[in-house]
């Protein structure tokens, strides 16, 4: 169903299993096993070195450093972050920010990181404690956010929403806004793979819809940029406004299609929620071998039978595979948030872009060859697969174009090539020249 790329476009790299908190919703499947304690410092350096080499040699475009809590081992990981940045790979950072000091913030900035995703479970310290199991969590994360903002980082606050904090989505958005954060995401908690019974925490479908509605209210009333950072089934949300205003509720699962996880021990998994691994970057085959081994995730092998006739099946692919497995028993089970009573509501976003008289390729554009041509990449949300002709044009043409010269360069007509130019302008891969 999905094209097999030569390697992931983006990876998340869990550089440690250690954390300062023990959140009830933590997806890290080793949470109760303390396996990470068997990995000692010299082994870590070997692993970090190999993972970095694999990421660079496979031309992965974007890396998110995550954990556990990556700040706990920041001195060890810093040289490798610098290597990734030097290789022109986009590097972002997931952290609870509790351990962040002003000195560490400066070091993080110097290493090339510019954006951080942090977790804010609640506006209420008591609820925060009941979720994180850390009495210092609320205070220390608030302090860390202040330090990060002061240093100039773009900080996005993500709230993982369970029954414990569902009623606090709006107040938590108010709270993060009061700290100076302008980007707020709310993401439903998923059942961790090693958790026997998560039913007391898991949102119902109506609870999930309430979360989405509150997120929209945050956008309208507080003016924050809002999103959600998990892929949900297309039929879970029926409200057209939510689909139109919040991109994340239209998101396709990218696990094994353009994205994968690399664990602190080198194991490769399709997504943060899945505990199944398909290879190890440290062993023969490396990242590419593991990537190809995830082939069933790219076919319709895991498409639930109930979704076979759905018009949205190619882009929805049945929702979250991990939720399906952990709650309903297998990857090809139905996502627990599917609502098959009506056809999915699909957003239609209008674009008001027009084609400027002169335009050129973005100088920050990066490219990667593929068997079908290649990839033009600006960011996780701005990349496209393209033909060999367009790939070559993008790589070697640091000149201004008109629609006519662009069409001529591709051996096409101006009228035919307009949708292509608009798609590239939409993603800022092409930009107007004043």
């Amino acid at each position, binding site marked *: *169903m*999905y*094209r097999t790329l030569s390697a992931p*476009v*983006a990876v998340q790299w869990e550089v440690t299993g250690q954390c300062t908190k023990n959140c009830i919703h933590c997806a890290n499947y080793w949470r109760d096993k303390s396996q990470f304690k068997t990995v000692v410092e010299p082994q870590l350096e070997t692993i970090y070195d190999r993972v970095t080499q694999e990421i660079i040699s496979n031309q992965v*475009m*974007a890396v998110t450093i995550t954990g556990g809590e990556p700040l706990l081992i920041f001195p060890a990981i810093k040289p490798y972050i610098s290597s990734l940045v030097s290789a022109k790979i986009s590097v972002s950072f997931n952290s609870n920010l509790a351990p962040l000091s002003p000195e560490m913030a400066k070091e993080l900035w110097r290493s090339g990181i510019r954006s951080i995703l942090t977790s804010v479970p609640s506006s209420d310290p008591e609820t925060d404690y009941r979720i994180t199991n850390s009495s210092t969590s609320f205070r220390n994360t608030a302090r860390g956010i202040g330090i990060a903002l002061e240093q100039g980082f773009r900080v996005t606050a993500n709230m993982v929403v369970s029954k414990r904090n569902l009623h606090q989505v709006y107040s938590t958005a108010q709270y993060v806004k009061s700290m100076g954060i302008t980007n707020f995401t709310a993401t439903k908690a998923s059942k961790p793979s090693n958790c026997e019974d998560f039913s007391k925490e898991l949102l119902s479908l109506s609870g999930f819809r309430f979360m989405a509605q509150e997120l929209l209210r945050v956008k309208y009333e507080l003016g924050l940029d809002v999103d959600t950072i998990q892929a949900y089934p*297309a039929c879970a949300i029926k409200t057209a406004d939510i689909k139109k205003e919040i*991109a*994340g509720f*239209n*998101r*396709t699962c*990218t696990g094994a*299609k*353009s*994205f994968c996880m690399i664990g602190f021990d080198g194991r490769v998994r399709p997504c943060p929620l899945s505990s199944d691994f398909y290879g190890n970057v440290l062993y023969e085959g490396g990242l590419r071998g593991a990537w190809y081994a995830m082939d069933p995730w790219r*076919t*319709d092998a895991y498409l639930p039978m109930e979704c076979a006739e759905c*018009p*949205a099946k*190619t*882009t*929805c692919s049945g929702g979250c595979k991990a939720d399906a497995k952990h709650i309903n028993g297998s990857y090809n089970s139905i996502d627990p948030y599917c609502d098959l009573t009506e056809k999915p509501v*699909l*957003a*239609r*976003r209008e*674009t008001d872009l027009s084609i400027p008289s002169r335009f050129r390729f973005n100088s920050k554009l990066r490219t990667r060859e593929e068997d*079908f*041509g290649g990839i033009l*990449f600006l*960011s*996780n*949300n701005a*990349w*496209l*697969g*393209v*033909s060999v*002709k*367009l790939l070559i044009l993008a790589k070697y043409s640091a000149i201004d174009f008109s629609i006519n010269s662009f069409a001529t360069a*591709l051996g*096409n007509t101006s009228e*035919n*090539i307009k*949708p*292509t130019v*608009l*798609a590239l302008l*939409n993603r800022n891969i092409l930009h107007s020249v004043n």
Partner: protein
Amino acid sequence: MAPEIVSMYYSTDHEGQLWQMEGHCEDCDCDCDGSTCDSGHCQVEG
């Protein structure tokens, strides 16, 4: 398809051909073709 842009989707119903062949996105009923609009669900996001 928009010329020179390559879809990430295949149709398993048509022996591996590209899913969107007619310049029309069946999923969202828009004329984007499935790989050029910004609807979010017509593209594989990283």
